[in-house]
């Protein structure tokens, strides 16, 4: 009796795995090169008469930061209240509801503020960046920039990346304060702990290290969102359908990278 031939199946699986790894390494290398090129344009651009334009940076900051403020505020407020509800319930099992502020404030500053903000920006601005670069690639607008002597990394990528680097931490900071504030309001209403007492607890428990932990990771998230959006946009093929695919891919990859990096960052920063 002939045995089923599984050699082809294994071979195909290994082939697919190998290609995925090569593709991942290529994209990491591409990301590193893009980051380096952005730094080059920030430093050398003015000397070469090709500066990264402030007008473009401000326009990107408006797009990434200011227009995202309402949704960030709503999400931060909602998650603040959610944390308060869950915290009071969990600590209530031990009769320690009055200590709920410690957990809420630490979790918001070190984790939820930067994480939720980054996920929102990845879904909103990272995808928009991928779609923009993808559409421009398909419409030959990137080629047009090149032929006009306008470096696309200087003109498109560097302003978006710098805007991300400024606005993601800024929005994270806003998100932290709003999250803590709305949680404080809920705690006051539910447990009768005054907002002033809740705020004093927050000041006592939070250190500069906690704040830097949150802001530090939001800076890394900003770089990840920007680079993943650009790399996906630039790799577009196949017209409008291709733009849709790279946009979706960009969001999925950004969120996965944010969560994975968050875990690594949390592990390293709590061990050192």
């Amino acid at each position, binding site marked *: 009796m002939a045995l089923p031939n599984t050699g082809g199946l294994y071979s195909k699986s290994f082939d697919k795995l190998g290609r995925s790894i090569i593709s991942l390494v290529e994209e990491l290398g591409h990301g590193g090169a893009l980051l380096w090129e952005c730094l080059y344009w920030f430093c050398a651009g003015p000397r070469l008469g*090709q500066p990264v334009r402030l007008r473009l940076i401000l326009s990107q900051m408006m797009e990434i930061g200011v227009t995202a403020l309402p949704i960030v505020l709503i999400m931060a407020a909602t998650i603040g209240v959610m944390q308060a509800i869950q915290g009071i319930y969990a600590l209530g099992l031990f009769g320690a509801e009055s200590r709920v502020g410690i957990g809420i404030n630490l979790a918001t500053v070190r984790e939820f503020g930067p994480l939720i903000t980054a996920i929102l920006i990845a879904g909103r601005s990272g995808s928009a960046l991928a779609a923009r670069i993808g559409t421009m690639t398909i419409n030959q607008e990137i080629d047009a920039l090149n032929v006009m002597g*306008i470096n696309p990394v200087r003109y498109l990528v560097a302003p978006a990346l710098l805007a991300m680097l400024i606005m993601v931490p800024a929005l994270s900071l806003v998100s932290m304060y709003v999250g803590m504030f709305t949680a404080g309001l809920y705690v006051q209403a539910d447990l009768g702990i005054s907002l002033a007492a809740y705020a004093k607890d927050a000041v006592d428990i939070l250190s500069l290290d906690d704040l830097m932990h949150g802001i530090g990771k939001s800076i890394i998230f900003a770089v990840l969102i920007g680079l993943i959006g650009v790399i996906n946009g630039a790799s577009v093929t196949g017209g409008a359908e291709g733009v849709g695919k790279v946009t979706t891919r960009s969001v999925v990859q950004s969120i996965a990278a944010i969560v994975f990096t968050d875990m690594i960052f949390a592990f390293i920063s709590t061990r050192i």
Partner: protein
Amino acid sequence: MSSTLQQETPDNNAESVITVEDLVMYYGNRKILKNVSMEIRNGEIMVIMGGSGSGKSTLLRQLMVLERPHSGTIKILDQDVGEMPAQELYNLRKKLGVAFQGGALFSSMSVGENIMLPLHEHTELDPATMQIMARMKLEMVNLAGFEDLKPSELSGGMIKRAAVARAIVMDPRILYMDEPSAGLDPVVSSSLDDLILLLRDAMGMTIVVVTHELESTFKIADRVTVLDQGEILFIGTVDELKNHPSERIQSLLNRRADDEMLDPDAYLKRLTGEDVNGDATL
């Protein structure tokens, strides 16, 4: 206007502004350009034509320095672009203009902003002067008054004209045009041909046009390069092309001439489903 313009042909002994020698280009394992050699003279309109997959778009990308060749040399304005450092290439690009097939206008900007973009990036002119220059170029392409519109508000022909205006705003030495007539009706296509002739005669530009439209080629070309499967079949004048004894070239020309797209009546019939004399086609 066009007949007058056509009579002004450039000097046959003019200097070369683009020289290509033994150019080879691969995509993967496929050899797209096979030892292509050609020269383009100052002030001439060189039309590069060929069927789909002949390598004409790849050759144009090489001439625009969007890709580097695998072997061979390309000299533009006496500079070898093969190993050219970035800053020198940046300076060279200021002397090149490109009008892409789809226009490649930036959709987030108005027509005027699109045209002023190269001025913003490469000059220190004040905004008022830039606006005047942009308006001048728009007048040249018959689009005066459209500067505040977005590209999405323009027709196909107007987008191509706006793209030409942007391409010439820096008064380039060489203008590349990729399929300028593609997707346009015969009337608009003919007016674009007139514009190309005007640019050569009024501004002294060297113009490289990639097209597969025979009518347009016959009207505008000073010389024609015919590409087939990555090889140059022919380089010469329109008359030389028409009278060339090669069966390959003649079959290419005849095949094109039979195309109903070249016949305005047939084109209208196809569009409307009616004969041009008004009889409905069942």
